[in-house]
């Protein structure tokens, strides 16, 4: 539980205001959220409220089992759904936007739930500091819209093992088609929102090349009840596809994990690709079909076929949903952005993350499409809620106007007493969606939830065990070639086609040519 003192409030408000500025910039410069299929804006508003009421309680349980900074370490080593858009930005932003809605309705005052706000933002800050430890920033925006959390030992394996491609060859075609299919399926499975997709990087791969890492999450049976029986031929729940581009500068990788490039993203500039999977139970990235270019192409073709069929199956299922079911599903996708923290900690319960709280259900009749669209627009674009105004002398970072999206905590809570410090920990909720009956797809196979939690509670990846956890890039710089550094690097090199057992101290020039068995791309 939060320690309420002047220092913790100063830190909380600093973090909150930075998030407020960044979120405003994202909302006004990025894209429009709309769908003819899903009532998106109504479900987004409900999701924010659900986050407000539930997240503090759920995060406290997780934090007690596995501290936030340890979760950041886990997320830094492989691709997990608690990533830039979901955990680093979305989790605290959704929580705080829900708080704004309630304040605007006069159902909350800025000092209320102060312990919850401090706890959520403290958790978020500790997670982000550890997640971004490699580059030392707290967000992509702070790093100049860039995302470089992977350590050298992982990037070296990618560089050595990715398969070269040229436009028109089998692997190039298979990779571009699979990425397209994955993108589309991820939007559909996540009710039109982008949180099933993730991008990070760029990383300098030399000779005018840059690597971006593209991830796709929750692809088959798992937490979402609507994926029961969908894509069950797919043996993995998450896929990571590192892609090397030539002659393309990815000049922006924002906190929604979307990118911009100059020249713009063009599949013709893809020079090398690979495929991996990871989840809460994997010890590092696990190669998928990486033995040779033909096997990788064949695997990608097979996965694309499965996902193409799954897209049609899922679309037909969703097309029969009622409006309330569509809203519940979308709201739960958004409000459960932090759910994989519970999977990492082994504390996941379906009703915690896939129920709309009773306190939220009471607002549903307000959520017609027009109110959803316009209230969201007022709150995050126009900043038109009366309480979002500041005094007439102030000029906000991006708008230059005297208004902020998110409201700080008044320091007077340290002396006043007419506020309620927490929204409470009694969670009761429901959903109009069919109950989940399927299993969970993990790297340990299709297992039930008790087994998933049991395995998660007992698991720490080898690169984070003991002293390894603190052997960061600075330490490696001073100790490469030592027995300890070699051991650390060999952990990342397990399963590598070209670097197994090579240890630390390798430079780019020492890496074997990726051309062997590949599609002929040079390096």
């Amino acid at each position, binding site marked *: 539980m939060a320690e309420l003192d002047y220092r913790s409030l100063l830190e909380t408000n600093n973090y909150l205001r930075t998030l407020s500025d960044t979120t405003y910039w994202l909302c006004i410069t990025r894209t429009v959220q709309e769908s003819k299929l899903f009532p998106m804006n109504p479900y987004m508003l409900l999701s924010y409220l659900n986050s407000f009421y539930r997240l503090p309680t759920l995060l406290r349980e997780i934090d007690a089992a596995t501290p936030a900074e340890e979760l950041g370490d886990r997320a830094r080593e492989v691709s997990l759904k608690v990533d830039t858009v979901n955990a680093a930005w979305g989790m605290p932003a959704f929580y705080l936007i829900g708080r704004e809605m309630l304040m605007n*309705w006069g159902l909350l005052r800025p000092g209320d739930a102060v312990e919850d706000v401090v706890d959520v933002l403290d958790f978020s800050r500790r997670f982000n500091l550890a997640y971004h430890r490699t580059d030392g920033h707290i967000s992509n925006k702070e790093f100049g819209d860039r995302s470089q959390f992977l350590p050298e030992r992982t990037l070296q394996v990618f560089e050595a093992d990715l398969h070269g491609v040229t436009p028109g060859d089998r692997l190039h075609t298979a990779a571009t088609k699979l990425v397209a299919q994955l993108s589309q399926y991820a939007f559909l499975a996540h009710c039109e929102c982008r949180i099933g997709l993730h991008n990070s990087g760029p990383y300098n791969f030399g000779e005018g090349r840059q690597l971006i890492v593209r991830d796709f999450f929750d692809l088959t049976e798992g937490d979402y009840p609507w994926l029961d029986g969908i894509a069950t031929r797919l043996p993995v729940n998450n896929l990571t596809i590192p892609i090397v581009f030539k002659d393309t500068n990815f000049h922006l990788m924002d906190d929604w994990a979307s990118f911009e490039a100059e020249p713009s993203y063009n599949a013709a500039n893809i020079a090398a690709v690979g495929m991996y999977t990871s989840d809460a139970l994997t010890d590092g990235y696990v190669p998928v079909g990486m033995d040779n270019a033909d096997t990788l192409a064949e695997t990608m073709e097979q996965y694309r076929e499965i996902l193409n069929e799954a897209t049609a199956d899922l679309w037909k299922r969703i097309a029969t949903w009622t409006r309330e079911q569509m809203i519940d599903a979308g709201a739960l996708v958004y409000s459960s952005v932090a759910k994989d923290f519970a999977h990492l900690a082994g504390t996941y319960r379906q009703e915690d993350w896939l129920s709309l709280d009773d306190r939220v259900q009471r607002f549903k009749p307000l959520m017609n499409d027009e109110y959803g669209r316009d209230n969201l627009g007022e709150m995050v674009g126009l900043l038109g809620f009366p309480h979002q105004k500041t005094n007439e002398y102030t000029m906000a970072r991006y708008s230059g106007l005297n208004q902020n999206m998110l409201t700080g905590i008044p320091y007077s809570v340290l002396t006043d007493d007419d506020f309620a410090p927490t929204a409470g920990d009694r969670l009761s909720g429901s959903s109009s969606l069919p109950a989940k009956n399927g299993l969970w797809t993990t790297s340990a196979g299709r297992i039930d939830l008790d087994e998933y939690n049991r395995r998660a509670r007992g698991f720490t990846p080898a690169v984070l065990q003991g002293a390894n956890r603190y052997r960061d890039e600075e330490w490696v710089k001073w100790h490469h070639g030592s027995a300890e550094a070699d051991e650390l690097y060999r952990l990342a090199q397990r399963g590598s086609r070209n670097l197994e057992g090579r240890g630390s101290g390798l430079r780019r020039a020492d890496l074997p040519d990726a051309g062997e068995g590949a599609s002929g791309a040079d390096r």
Partner: protein
Amino acid sequence: MLPLPGRFNGAVRALAAQRFAATGARWKDVVFERQFDLFSLADARAVEQEALDDGYRFDFSATVSLESEPDKYKRPERETPAFTDGGTNADGRRQVGVGDNVIRKSATVTGPVALISRIEQVMGYLADGIPEGTIAVIDDSGGTLTAPIIEGFAGVICLGGTVRSHLGILAREYDVPTLMNCKIDTLSDGDVVELEVTAAPPAADAYETGDTGHARIWLVGNEG
């Protein structure tokens, strides 16, 4: 403040203030402990009903909203053409629209248009397939309405969004020639159009500067 948020939010605030005053208790003892006294499901229904009783009807965005609660939503009206100043070029073709090109191609794309806005149309294409060369006219910049069929179109005219919208992202991934943020004159199913997908995509700051709409759409022929 936009009209409906102004109306609803004001109503919720007034109710909450009135209910709190009636408790005679301190705020900290009411805000969460008695939160359903401040505002309840019945209150939300009453706020909505009052607007409907006044004759207010809501704009819809998802077709499921209009179909499931037709009495609450405005019926879609035939929209006034957003683009009406198109000239005729030397070939006799009339310009019928502009948009933002997602992927720069080496040649323009020509084909008959199909206007798509409903689930039933997508279901029909899923069952019967998409006629070759079809250019979809979609007013939804999301990626899910047309999720199972987008790859089958020869081109897409999207009447909303930006090149960064979900449909723009998917168009790029699938390499489907697509213009986003289009303004068009009235088009009917079967009209044959040419998309200038050879145009440069908008610059990174185009949506802040307003420098958009450089790809043209030409009417090549009318059905029948």
